[in-house]
């Protein structure tokens, strides 16, 4: 197995005696260690990793990245509006929600880019449909069965690629993974992922043979299940190996999002041959009594992300990891009568990583020029995808999404 012969970055650091005080190791040495162990992920040309985080339910973007000098904001939100003094001030017109302190620390280091006003034409306010649109990168009135990550893998992955090329930390495989080649797996907990040998003749080999696909197609349900069984077994071997070596030094909170980020950190640290990790973090559908709920969720989000980044730095993996954070939509500009907000449209998208320009990108939507009470989007989410596909994953975004979208100046090396 490929992974067996690979040194993890951590092992390299250990060998070179740098691991004991990972936090105090000069960054250039960590980078050096990284560079010397760097090899492409099997099936891909380089070792870049993308971590996609879906804040499910529709995060209220306006109370996340707050335009505190805009009177229209406070007029629309007489009770939910967050006062200037309670915000983490970013610049003379913007503040982060107070729960985002750990994220602001990353922002201050230039690691975070906020793309404002991200959405798509003719927005759909259904969670499910809008999620589907984001997952499949389709127009609002076009129904696609394959996801953008599935399309990307179909397009870009060469031989040697493993089913774990995309991995969702979840019991369920997200639609974003759906593709012709069926790459991408769901793993809720790597510690207990695998087929357990039974008594008598119940061996793993027999389980494999019993469920060996008869054809390459997954058209029939039966064949589909056999393919999944095969992927599970192949992936379990690799994951078991990796989970043993992957460590995480940072301190994570006990909430589900943080522990899932910890899982991702361990798998990256153990050098799982995975190009894209996918996490869904739900609970953002705040129709009533939004303030305490959103505060709690954003806190979990920011602290989980910050711990994850600490791990990436300590592992020497920070330069090869990019995080994309989105929600299926933002929320209505005006608050409702239940201390909450209803489904809306455009929202800020977060990118976290080292090659980014940092700061703000896109254009802040007006709070007065609205479409039936909702923000008018200024950047198509597929422009964000296109930029990541081209600049980070090095692939032709038109082939993945069937159409060209303007690229955004998000990365330091980008031209536009």
């Amino acid at each position, binding site marked *: 197995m490929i992974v067996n012969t690979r040194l993890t970055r951590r092992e390299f650091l250990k060998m070179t005696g740098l691991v004991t005080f990972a936090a105090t190791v000069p960054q250039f040495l960590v980078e050096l260690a990284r560079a010397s162990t760097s090899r492409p992920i099997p099936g891909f040309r380089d070792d870049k990793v993308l971590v996609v985080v879906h804040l499910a339910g529709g995060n209220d973007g306006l109370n996340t990245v707050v335009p505190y000098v805009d009177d229209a904001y406070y007029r629309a939100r007489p009770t939910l509006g967050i006062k200037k003094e309670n915000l983490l001030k970013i610049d003379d017109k913007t503040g982060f929600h107070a729960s985002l302190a750990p994220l602001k620390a990353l922002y201050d280091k230039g690691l975070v880019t906020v793309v404002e006003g991200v959405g798509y034409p003719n927005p*759909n*306010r*259904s*969670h*499910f*449909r809008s999620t589907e649109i984001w997952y499949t990168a389709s127009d609002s009135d076009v129904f696609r069965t394959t996801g953008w990550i599935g399309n990307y893998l179909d397009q870009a992955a060469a031989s040697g690629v493993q*089913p774990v090329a995309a991995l969702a930390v*979840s*019991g*369920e*495989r997200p639609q974003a993974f759906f593709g012709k080649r069926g790459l991408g*797996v*769901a*793993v*809720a907990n790597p*510690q*207990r*992922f*695998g*087929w*357990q*040998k*039974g*008594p*008598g*003749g*119940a*061996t*793993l080999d*027999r*389980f494999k*043979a*019993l*469920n060996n696909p*008869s054809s390459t197609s997954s058209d*029939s*349900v*039966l064949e*589909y*299940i*056999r393919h*999944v*069984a095969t*992927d*599970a077994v192949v*992936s*379990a071997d690799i994951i*078991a190996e990796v989970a043993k070596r992957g460590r995480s030094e940072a301190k994570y909170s006990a909430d589900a999002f943080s522990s899932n980020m910890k899982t991702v950190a361990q798998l990256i640290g153990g050098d799982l041959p995975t190009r894209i990790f996918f996490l869904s973090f*739900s609970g953002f559908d705040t*129709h*009533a009594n939004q303030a305490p709920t959103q505060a709690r969720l954003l806190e979990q989000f920011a602290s989980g992300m910050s711990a994850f980044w600490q791990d990436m730095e300590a592992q020497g993996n920070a330069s090869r990891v990019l995080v994309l954070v989105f929600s299926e939509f933002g929320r209505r500009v005006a608050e*409702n*009568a*239940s201390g*909450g907000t*209803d*489904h809306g449209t455009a929202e800020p998208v977060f990118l976290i990583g080292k090659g980014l320009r940092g700061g703000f990108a896109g254009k802040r939507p007006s709070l007065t020029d609205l479409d*039936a009470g909702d923000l008018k989007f200024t950047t198509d989410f597929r422009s964000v995808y296109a930029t990541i596909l081209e600049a980070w994953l090095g692939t032709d975004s038109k082939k993945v999404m069937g159409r060209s979208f303007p690229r955004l100046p998000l990365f330091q090396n980008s031209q536009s």
Partner: protein
Amino acid sequence: MNVLAPAHLDRSFTWDAVKARHLLERAGFGLPPSAAQRLASMSLTEAVNALVDYERYPQNMVEPDWLPEIPDPREERKKLAALSAEARQQMRRERQRQEREALLRLQGWWVDRMLCTERPLEEKMTLFWHGHFAVSAQKVRSTRLHYELNQIFRTHATGNFGHLVRAVGKSPAMLEYLDNRLNRKGHPNENWARELFELFTLGIGHYTENDIKEAARAFTGWTARGGSFVYDARQHDDGEKVIFGRVGRFDGDQVIDLVLQQPACAEFICRKLWVFFVSENPNPEAVKELAKTFRDSGYELKPVLRQMFMSRAFYSPEVMGSQVKSPAFFVTNTVGKLGVNPNERMPLVLLAMKAMGQELFVPPNVKGWEGGRAWISTNSLLTRSSFTGYLVAGVSPSFGGEGKARLKTLSSPPPSSASPFASPMMSDTPSMMSQDVLGSSDSMPLRDEDVREFLLALAEDNRSSRQRFRTWFNASEFFAPYESWSVEQVVDTLAAYFLSVPLERSRRNILLEALCEKVARKDKQLLLRDIPEDNRRGMLYLLLSSAEYQLC
């Protein structure tokens, strides 16, 4: 030829045990397994009627008497005001603990209903409505409200859809889940109105954003207090609304009338019923015709269900054995077929269902469970295997030692003189749980050590063959009837008993090899009695880990 034409009108159609089992599995949980034989001995019409007209059989329901009360809000406020902040916190925590415990019991109570009911379609439709009008305990904390909504689903399970929608819309559980209890004049909350159109009755594309906004106004004043529906006239927006192009001073009930007048409604529900009961790919013609039946009957469900279960399409080869079992089906059917009493470890059974992706009363979101292929991921497939492996491949139960026997013996054989009026779904074994096992102190509440044991089992890595469990599957009893059979016969019989899809020869031979692992043949025909118990368990575990076993 019309796909909905009654199957038996076709001369080439034969009604047999395989088709009867298909009906029993789709319209119920495939339990008890022997009911397929009894259904097959009737005519198709009688068999379908036995499932659909279930009122003729007793409901045998033990109503829960352990649901926490919902306090009167005024009393509650008074009580809380008198307490210190700390005591208040303490009280809240205690309430939460009680609700969690009650929810677990309610989940077990429902699993028991699925296992023991003589009216399987009633429970299957209750499950369908639970997924359709999804309400989650993650938001609605009162277990009593979940039970009440569940009873609404059961009462109207195969009744009138219009009555059902109205009852659900006024149920405190739904009023809380989709926030309509907060929907007030001048301050509309659209959550319920939107999902009513999008997910519960019409589907996307059959209403406008404006229809939602106006409908939300019409539902103002529908609220709940102290666990009961309240119409608060002061909070109702009595103004004029425009909905689906109609103008009027509509209220909530009238919006539901308007919805039911939309042609899209009947098609939407019939399509969903088709996907749930027949096939992941709805046949547009069949859906259209069922919708006509639905509308013509004034939204009565029974004519639709009867037409579906009688139809040629329902028994077509593409449909039979093509459905992915839901976790609820997988768990109840497996337990029932193995003759295992789930009550001894109900928390584990519930935990397994949750790990497979279906926790009762906790659907993932308001859209319910996706179902179909979505049940199968690398993760859930391995979890299904873990569960069956746990059931059949652990060590023999030990009855001594730990004080009270944790593993009760399996029920004694059924009294052979079943009443001639008994439902064909009458269980072969006395009810596994209804004798209030839930109340017995050693099965509830959730025992931490059991959970830990189970999680450890799931975590067990491949190299370790150490067995940590007392299984509660009784292998010697299960295999007893087959001792003198040839190993080939045993494999073929068990495959036919457990699988709804034929097993290819080469795959069947793998099971045979597993059964005979390390057993010397010595040129004679091997009989089951030559096979050690570990091999039997191992073979059964493999059989239940097959792709075929995921389908019904």
